[in-house]
């Protein structure tokens, strides 16, 4: 079998804040279609690492390669168009707009910028409702986002990511602050998304990680401490000491 080139690679990727090396020369590779979890203690550099990938933060060294193309110098909005979607760790929806209008902003950009795709207004509405449907918010489409429950706002955040039809969806601690039943639904949702897209998931809840991830990367102090299948990670001594608490 020929080796397929990975969807995403980073080479020696690093970012310093003053003297602090938040991300420290990370080599990382993510095959297309994989659901991959990044775990690690607070301050390990997980958010910074994925921010380097999606272009929100500029690297101090190293390269990012997406779909065979070096995107290290590409501005964030172009990376989004190239297929990388990021959902914020801190919920970041448009509180004054309805849920539908929030996803419509994600969809409408394709109408404004990508005329060649020739999306009709009708298709856009459908496309937007479809994203809400997937996360189970269809019945709340016309509620103002600011009045939705916290859990629903998190789901809306994901719907906005989905409406971009990304090839790589980055979820930054999506289950933070959700109730147990909401988490259960969320796991089912990500599993479904994972059938169509590559998912990079930062997550603290180990049950969620074990349920979803095909492979896991453990980060600590800006470096990769370990990488492997869930079973390997669970068995890894160093990981247990550093993170899983013994």
């Amino acid at each position, binding site marked *: 079998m020929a080796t397929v080139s990975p969807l995403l690679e980073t080479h020696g990727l690093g970012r310093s804040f003053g003297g602090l090396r938040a991300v420290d020369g990370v080599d990382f590779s993510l095959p297309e279609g994989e659901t991959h979890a990044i775990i690690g203690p607070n301050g390990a550099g997980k958010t910074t690492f994925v921010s380097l990938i*999606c272009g929100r933060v500029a690297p101090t060294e190293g390269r990012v390669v997406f779909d065979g193309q070096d995107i290290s110098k590409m501005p964030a*909005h172009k990376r*989004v*168009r190239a297929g990388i979607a990021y959902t914020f760790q801190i919920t970041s929806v448009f509180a004054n707009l309805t849920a539908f*209008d929030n996803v419509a*902003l*994600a969809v*409408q*950009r394709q109408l*404004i910028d990508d005329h060649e795709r020739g999306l009709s207004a009708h298709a856009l509405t459908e496309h937007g409702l479809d994203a809400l449907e997937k996360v189970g918010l269809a019945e709340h489409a016309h509620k103002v986002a600011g009045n939705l429950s916290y859990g629903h706002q998190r789901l809306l955040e994901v719907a906005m990511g989905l409406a971009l039809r990304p090839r790589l969806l980055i979820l930054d601690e999506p289950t933070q602050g959700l109730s147990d039943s909401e988490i259960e639904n969320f796991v089912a949702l990500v599993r479904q998304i994972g059938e169509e897209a590559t998912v990079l998931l930062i997550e603290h809840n180990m049950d969620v990680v074990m349920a979803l991830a095909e492979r896991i990367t453990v980060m600590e102090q800006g470096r990769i401490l370990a990488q492997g299948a869930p079973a390997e990670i669970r068995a890894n001594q160093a990981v247990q000491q550093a993170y899983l608490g013994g």
Partner: protein
Amino acid sequence: MTRLTPSTKSIALHIGVVFALLALNFLLPEYHRGVFARVLVLAVFAMGYNLAFGYTGLLSLGHAMFFAAGLYGAGLTIYHLEWSVWPAFGTGLAAGAALALVVGFLALRTTGVAFMIVTLMFAQVFYLMTLYFTTYTRGEEGLVLPQETRVLGFSGGMLDLSDPSTRYLVALSLFTLVLAAILFLVRAPYGRSLIAIRENEERMRMLGYDVFANKLASVVISGIFCAASGAAYAVLFGYVGSGFAAIQYSILPLLWVLVGGAATTLGPLIGTLFMFYVIDTASSYTTAHLMVVGLVLIGVILFFPKGIIGTVRERWLPWLP
């Protein structure tokens, strides 16, 4: 009874406002018709400012330069080159567009307070230039455009822009055009993305929007509207002077928009009209009119924290655009 959709209601309202203004041309006494003509032209300035400030969230302190670019673009070509009104007006628009493109390109690298200061500095440079080239502009004293140059070729005939009724109707036509353009813009996807950029720029970037390009386009359109107002002012009122490039004329549109309601389509008109009459009334009773104006402004802010139209929209008429 059929229920009107918000969009039908708002379009009907705007058409109603334009017709009411048209009727005023025949109803107003001479003095007030003159005031209204001036207000209509300056409301275009306020609407242009509102696009950048109200809808896009760009607090510029330098919009006098765009108004003055239109004013001088039209005024100097008429006065020195003896151009007729149409090409002179076009020159004013082009000057405003070019200036807005350059200033926007540089100033939009900053945000917040830095943006205020950078736009202020650019406007100050422009103001000083109008004084420096005093041979052509006659600085503060300014130029008076002779009445015979202020005629507009229109469908075969010639309109005398110094005639009060013609002046009013031309001012109203420009106002109507720009109002329609703004109404169209803010209801279009582009307008919705500007508002969303104002609300959460980072989010929009991560939805794939080129935030810089969108803001730059907003500044350029805003600059063109302000220049249109300045160019119209030159040909309708026949006076071109440095005073219009001074800091005061950067603050005024901000005040008009705040009083009328930022990010509302009709707020700029209401704010400009209101401020004009407050100043006019106050200065006819007392020499300390600025104090009265200040008190009225405080009153407006207390009772209409989002401006007159903005507060009406919030409390009673949520469908107002």
